[in-house]
């Protein structure tokens, strides 16, 4: 029979031990905040966002002194997208790019102004690296300005225009997508790593055997650990959202639908950690198996980048990872406001948690035969 007093007694001893261990506290609370700060800083600007590009203007200009090539480069530079660095027309441009470790470059040909005014076809050469995302932006921008200059030449205006928008009703920043992912990340790592470690260590140094000599049952022991990680997760959640909102001006929806994720999530991974620790022979093997289970989830369950950015077979794989339903659910609640989607995620997580809890308790041995 499960006894609340014993669960509370065990909770008290465990949480006190945890809080006295600075290392555990760091990984439980400080590390997720550091993650938010690092990823927030990387993706939420701070830099000008302009791409530096070298340009060589070989344009000889017009007899009246006008130089269309020069105007073109000035326009590019004022676009806010590119930062044009002009290079002496006499130097070997490809060698210059290589010497400056750059793959992006623009050459305006010698007859540029003359061809422009006489309406003869002329090409701007754009150097780029197909694997680099900045090269695509450079060629796109140059192409855009070439069109603009073409239209200008004939005094024409665009017919088709474009406005930017995101799926949310409000303007959504990357940090808004990042926060649910990183919360999912901490829901996974803290209870999982801890319970793998604790359960295998307790088994090794026979602490379980000792506890089996008291009226504490293994269900009570595991329940108290789950409770502890629910509390830790909620504390971590508040810290992470706080830092996201105050440091990066994140806009996330906070409502009652988050609670099932913050409660079931740590329960699921505490039980899974216990299961790994209990079926493995020693702490070393437990650590390895724990990593094998944890690492794919860390990166492939929509924590740092959305799974839609991954190839199809990896997306299918993501759907078997329990963490996927947590990050998807958190995104549904916090970003998209899609509550019916979140309810499906909650149902899936509840079923997985129940199965893993039962398995962990069944396979977990206090005593030896």
């Amino acid at each position, binding site marked *: 029979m499960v006894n609340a*007093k*014993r669960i*509370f*007694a*065990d909770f*008290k*001893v*465990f949480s*006190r*031990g945890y809080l*006295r*261990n600075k290392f555990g506290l760091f990984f439980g609370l400080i590390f997720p905040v550091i993650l938010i700060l690092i990823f927030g800083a990387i993706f939420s600007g701070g830099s000008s966002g302009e791409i530096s590009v070298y340009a060589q203007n070989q344009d000889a200009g017009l007899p009246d002194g006008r130089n269309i090539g020069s105007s073109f480069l000035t326009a590019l530079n004022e676009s806010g997208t590119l930062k044009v660095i002009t290079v002496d027309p006499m130097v070997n441009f490809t060698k210059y790019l290589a010497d400056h470790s750059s793959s992006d470059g623009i050459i305006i040909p010698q007859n540029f102004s003359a061809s422009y005014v006489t309406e003869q076809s002329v090409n701007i050469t754009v150097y780029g690296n197909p694997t680099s995302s900045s090269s695509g932006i450079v060629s796109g921008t140059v192409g855009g300005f070439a069109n603009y200059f073409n239209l200008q030449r004939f005094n024409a205006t665009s017919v088709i225009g474009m406005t930017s928008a995101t799926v949310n009703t409000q303007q959504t920043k990357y940090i808004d997508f990042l926060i649910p992912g990183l919360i999912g990340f901490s829901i996974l790592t803290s209870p999982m790593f801890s319970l793998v470690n604790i359960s295998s260590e307790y088994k090794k*140094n*026979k*602490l379980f*055997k*000792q506890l*089996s*000599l*008291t*009226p*504490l049952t293994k269900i009570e022991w595991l329940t108290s650990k789950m409770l502890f990680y629910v509390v830790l997760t909620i504390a971590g959640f508040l810290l992470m959202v706080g830092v996201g909102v105050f440091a990066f001006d994140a806009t996330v929806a906070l409502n009652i639908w988050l609670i099932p994720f913050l409660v079931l999530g740590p329960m699921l991974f505490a039980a899974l950690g216990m299961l790994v620790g209990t079926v493995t022979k020693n702490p070393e093997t437990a650590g390895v198996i724990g990593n094998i289970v944890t690492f794919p989830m860390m990166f492939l369950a929509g924590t740092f980048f959305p799974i839609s950015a991954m190839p199809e077979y990896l997306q299918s794989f993501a759907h078997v990872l329990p963490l996927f339903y947590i990050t998807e659910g958190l995104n549904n609640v916090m970003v998209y406001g899609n509550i019916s989607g979140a309810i499906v995620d909650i149902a899936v997580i509840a079923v997985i948690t129940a199965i893993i809890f039962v398995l962990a308790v069944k396979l977990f041995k206090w*005593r*030896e*035969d």
Partner: protein
Amino acid sequence: MLPIEVSKLQKNYGTLKAVDGISFNVKGGEVFGLLGPNGAGKTTTIEIMEGLRARDDGDVKVLGLDPWKKGYELHKKIGVIPQEFTFIEKTTPREAIIYYADLFNVKVNPDEILKEVLLEESAKTYFEDLSGGQKRKTGLALSLVNTPELLFLDEPTTGLDPNARRAIWDVIRGLKAKGKTIILTTHYLDEAQQLCDRVAIMDHGHIVAMGTTEEIIQEHGSGERLEIHGNEKLAEYIRANTELQVDYNKARGEVLIPLKKKIDALAALAAAEQSGMDWGQIQTRQDSLDDVFVKLVSEPIGEQGEIAIEYSGKKKRGR
């Protein structure tokens, strides 16, 4: 009903017969020692009695209960310190006692228990910072929380320094004085002699001797013998020139002569003097528990240097 009744107990690990059909009883208020070298089956036996391990065959009743089937019920009535007791690192002995009291749902005065196990001074030190002896005392303190009448102590002093061992002995004597029944395992002979009313010497899963230490010495030990410090040649000389049985202990450089009559000593010494060889210190002595133990147990235990004597004349007991 006796607190402990064990009959034809068997436990195998694969093909190894760890415990091979042993039987014994323990009376109320008695301190009973299971003595033997490492691997003799002591811990397996005690863990079966504690309900931590299943048995393969035989009957075990502890306080009238089957310890494996009724383990949960039994554990509320007994106190146990497992071998190499450990606890949650960042917890103090005082907190540990309160934790156990909550688990057992009993009211205790933690300071009183700490005093009983001589641990008041370290009441607020984290478990990880305690010395080996203090850790063991914490284990003793926890085993007392549910005020059990029956205590199991599995190697309570192994690995401790002499002072810490004596402090633990004092605690155990105090518990005995309170009338508690105590089962302890040890491979220290002096510990068994100091603390136990009766001991069972175990070897390779069997009990090879049982009783008070005096009874065991009387039954299995030899009578008085003369020991002469000297070399092997001296032993050969005495053997050749007297009617006496002469053994030689190489490790200690001692000639050993069992004395059937006191006068035999005179003959031996006369022969030694006659030999013209150097001979030193002489003494007569009787087998101690150490000597009996070495005789009975197939492998002398040398882990802490307790026993590592080799007798040239005596063959190790084979199995």
